[in-house]
């Protein structure tokens, strides 16, 4: 990939390419936080069939997304030559595991924001609210940075690493809490 070879002369213009993705991502994260704060929680949102309640639905979908996020990290490492796999399957696997993981999180985040809202009265919930807003902001930034040619070489590893870290944090403050307090329930 050519953008891994960018050096000092191009660095300034390379960073400028990230301006719009970063601004859009910041706007997404801010908008989610403001919506979560201002929207009166309805307490109710459509859930997916097959789970006994929205808490279980959210715990399992987030777990699915977190497992796919591990696939994301492994395939990304292979794409950057850090792991000894190769082959035409690596990039499609990375792309589709990411898409599916993102789509799995949408019903969860929708329920969180529409039915509950952002809250800051308990550490677990506060951390979860903040990480959730950041996650979608950085996701938007990464999606908008991906098609651009000539962005700094660290862009995708940093954004991808942040997304993985945030998702693990989100999983720990939701699914892990659910499984360890209520139990492994469907």
């Amino acid at each position, binding site marked *: 990939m050519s953008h891994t070879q960018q050096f000092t002369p191009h660095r300034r213009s390379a960073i400028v390419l990230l301006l719009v993705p970063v601004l859009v991502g910041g706007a997404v994260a801010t908008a989610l936080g403001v919506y979560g704060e201002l929207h009166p929680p309805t*307490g109710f949102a459509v859930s997916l069939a097959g789970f006994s309640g929205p808490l279980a639905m959210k715990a399992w979908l987030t777990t699915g997304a977190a497992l796919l996020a591990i696939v994301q990290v492994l395939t990304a490492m292979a794409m950057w030559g850090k792991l000894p796999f190769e082959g035409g399957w690596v990039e499609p696997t990375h792309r589709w595991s990411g898409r599916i993981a993102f789509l799995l999180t949408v019903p969860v985040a929708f329920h969180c924001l529409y039915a509950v809202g952002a809250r800051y009265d308990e550490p677990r919930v506060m951390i979860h609210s903040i990480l959730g807003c950041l996650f979608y902001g950085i996701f938007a930034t990464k999606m908008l940075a*991906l098609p651009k040619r000539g962005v700094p070489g660290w862009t995708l590893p940093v954004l991808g690493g942040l997304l993985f870290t945030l998702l693990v944090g989100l999983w720990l403050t939701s699914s892990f809490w659910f499984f360890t307090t209520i139990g492994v329930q469907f």
Partner: protein
Amino acid sequence: MSRLGPVYTLAVGAVLTVALGVASAQASPAVEQATAVPIDTTSTAPPVEEEAPTPEETPAPGETAPPEEAAPADTTPKKVDYAGVVQGNGGLVAISIRNGKAVAYFCDGHIEAWLKGKAENNTVTLEGKNALITASLGGGKAQGRVEFKGKSWRFSAAVVKKPSGLYRATAQVRGARIVGGWIKLPSGQSVGRLTIGESGAGEAAAAFDGGVVTWYGIPLTPTEPDAFIDTINP
């Protein structure tokens, strides 16, 4: 592979969000549909009024209560349960009084508040987390206001008898406290919510018809106000 692939991914996420929003707005919970039916509190109150504890029963006979000791005897009911609809909110409210102590629960399945307070001189004032209820008692009803997170609604709650009224169940599971609350009205309308932990994370609870309620495998036994009025600590 398209350079627009990531943009499509974002677009699909946005479309899914809108679809969930539309579906959620259409599939509103039962208790919200109940608001569409205007509840005529004036027509239900008079029959219940006869069942209300008459104030004359509560003051002790003359020989035990010297009239000069205090102002006119407090006619606040000693033991009474009220439950009714909160106007313009779709939630229900229940207030139970036991010898001057009062407990109340306000819930629409989504938002909820437990409150505690005092009943004296035929008024009741209850406080809870982000919540305040004030009501005057009389004519077989508690009439007043619920304030919750800066909003305020009026309510009129009639005296109700078992099995209608207020129920609460608690359990301790692996360090987290689970609290369930239910209000049942004589009309059959009911509402309930189950929460876990300090954050109030939880779900609307199904109606119960006595016995044990199971939530994710955790057994909960709803109890009447006599059992929990001294334990409420909002």
